[in-house]
């Protein structure tokens, strides 16, 4: 715990210093905009004690972030956003957790970037997100962050909001066409004694975004050196992708990508990594104020297993050929939303079902309530009662179900 406090001291001091600078520099406000977002929630969930016994847990949690955006110069933008979550949890003592495992970090840097716009191009540098491809939960075109896993929070408005350090240049080639190049800094390889990332481990790529015959066409490529193989060794991979979006009665979108290693068994890697995500979205206006939206997404990995596998302790979760994400959302008035979101694994017939309600009560103030249910056998992708030998403290939090009630305020 002492080690943790030491590690957090510097960022906390930095945050306090940054806040003091912002609050005591009136000139800054005249050129920028400061907004604060507070989220507080109470989570009741069925989980496990360190010895594996199940119990009902009550976990208050919260996050807060402030975001400073410059607005003085119309050709330069900057954004700085931190967040913290509470409580901090050291689960080193939990069963199956590596020593020193700490979940829910106290402080994290969400965004810190500067953008500048020149007559013919614009640049972005810092920690931010680039939305490549299309998809709400599954997006095979997102080769930067990888949006194909099931570790998502379906209670969030943006289920994929991860950011990373990057440098990018965006060149418009018309009103609905642009090209974009990106460089991702190398990661430190402390195992080989490199405290800082080596230059030759830089990742980078680009994409083109255009529209033809009413269809959005996006294609790109990333040379990614941040990947590791099954032995946790770094590997360099080529990641091409293609993403299309259009409308035929409903809005539809489709993305596909593959990871091809620079060296090694390319054919096997292509089979293992080829994936295709597709979705349809449609809104039905029930009357002038209420509407329903329907979304169905799928993630298809044709060379993965179509048969249910029996899991054993220590083995990773099996990767099945198909995952589906159906979502139905009902908006009875413009400020209230009810939804059911499900990640369904049809191969092992298990699902994570999230039923939620959100209400925008006042300006910037929202109330929300969600219930999450896991349905499936003990060794399935999602399980009502996770098999004792498969339960992983830290990785698994909710055993059967959880209920969350929260408030969120932006001001």
């Amino acid at each position, binding site marked *: 715990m002492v080690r943790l406090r030491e590690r957090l001291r510097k960022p906390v001091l930095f945050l306090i210093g940054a806040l003091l600078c912002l609050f005591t520099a009136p000139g800054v406000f005249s050129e920028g905009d400061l907004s604060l977002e507070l989220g507080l929630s109470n989570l009741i969930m069925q989980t496990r004690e360190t010895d594996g016994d199940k119990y009902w847990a009550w976990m208050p949690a919260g996050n807060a972030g402030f975001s400073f955006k410059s607005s003085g110069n119309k050709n330069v933008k900057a954004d700085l956003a931190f967040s913290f979550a509470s409580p901090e949890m050291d689960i080193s003592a939990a069963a199956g957790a590596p020593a020193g495992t700490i979940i829910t970090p106290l402080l994290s840097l969400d965004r810190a970037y500067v953008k500048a716009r020149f007559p013919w191009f614009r640049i972005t540098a810092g920690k931010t997100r680039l939305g490549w491809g299309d998809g709400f939960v599954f997006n095979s075109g997102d080769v930067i962050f990888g949006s194909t896993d099931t570790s998502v929070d379906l209670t969030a408005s943006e289920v994929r909001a991860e950011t990373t350090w990057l440098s990018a240049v965006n060149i418009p080639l018309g009103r609905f066409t642009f090209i974009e190049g990106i460089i991702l800094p190398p990661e430190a390889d402390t195992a080989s004694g490199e405290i800082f990332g080596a230059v030759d481990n830089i990742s980078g790529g680009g994409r083109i975004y255009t529209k033809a015959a009413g269809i959005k066409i996006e294609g790109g490529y990333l040379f990614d050196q941040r990947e590791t193989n099954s032995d946790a060794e770094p590997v360099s991979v080529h990641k091409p992708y293609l993403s299309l979006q259009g409308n035929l009665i409903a809005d539809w979108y489709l993305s596909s990508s593959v990871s091809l290693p620079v060296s090694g068994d390319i054919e096997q890697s292509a089979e293992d990594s080829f994936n295709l995500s597709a979705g349809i979205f449609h809104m039905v206006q029930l009357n002038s104020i209420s509407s329903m939206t329907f979304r169905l997404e799928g993630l298809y990995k044709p060379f993965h297993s179509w048969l249910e596998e029996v899991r054993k302790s220590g083995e990773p979760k099996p990767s099945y050929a198909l995952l589906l994400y159906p979502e139905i959302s009902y908006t009875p008035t*413009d400020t209230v939303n009810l939804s059911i979101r499900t990640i369904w694994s049809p191969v092992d017939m298990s699902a994570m079902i999230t039923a939620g309600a959100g209400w925008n009560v006042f300006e910037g103030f929202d109330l929300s309530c969600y219930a999450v249910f896991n349905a499936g056998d003990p060794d399935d992708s999602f399980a009502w009662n996770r098999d004792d030998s498969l339960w992983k403290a830290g990785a698994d939090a909710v055993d059967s179900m959880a209920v969350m009630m929260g408030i969120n305020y932006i001001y």
Partner: protein
Amino acid sequence: MNRKLIFTAITILILLPAFAFAISGDEIVRRADAAATFDTAESSGEMHITDRFGTKISSFDSWARGENESLIEFTSRAERGQKVLRTENEIYLYYPDAEELIRMQGSALRQGMLGSDISYEDMTGGKDRASQYSIEITDEQNLLGRDCWVLTLRANTRTVPYPKEIVWIDKQDYIVLKGEYYTKSGRLLKDMEVLEIGEMDGITMAVETRISDKMKSNSNTVLIMKDLKVDIKLDDEIFSLEELSW
């Protein structure tokens, strides 16, 4: 007999100018739509959205070119930086925190903007109602001290948001001072009423308008125009993905 003829001739002479200068319902609506449509416009304003829990204020800047191109940027704190680009058949949404461009078509255009009683179609849709409705003048009234025609519009196409409209159009400046918007079966969906008329950039126009969605109880949206510049030079780039995602 002669007296009868003379009386008839005098009557015709008196009424002739009125017939000669009578204006049709189509022409009134065409002029009203023309008065509300500019080659280009740059504006800023606020939406005061009131329901039983109080009033939310959303501010915005907008740029429009013709009937089908517009860009709206929300400037109020809770939605700051969110932008909507409308082209003829599609909407692009931009959420700055997610750095995400979302393209939508079809029925998504009918969504209410930020919980208001105004849909994207209301805000940015084409205004060529004379070709989309059968129009008749049904009455004449006085609103806000201005004489106006009362017209009933019945849709002759299914692509319009409201099958029936009753509008009160100012005789002097062709401003729509009041409107009632109905379903095909005659149920009132929405009404609109101008609360204040003012002058901006040399144009007499509604600067404060209240819109009430009749499907919601105790709810209305007041649209306040803060600034308007019309027929100015707007670059093509304003209605582009580059500007949307900036």
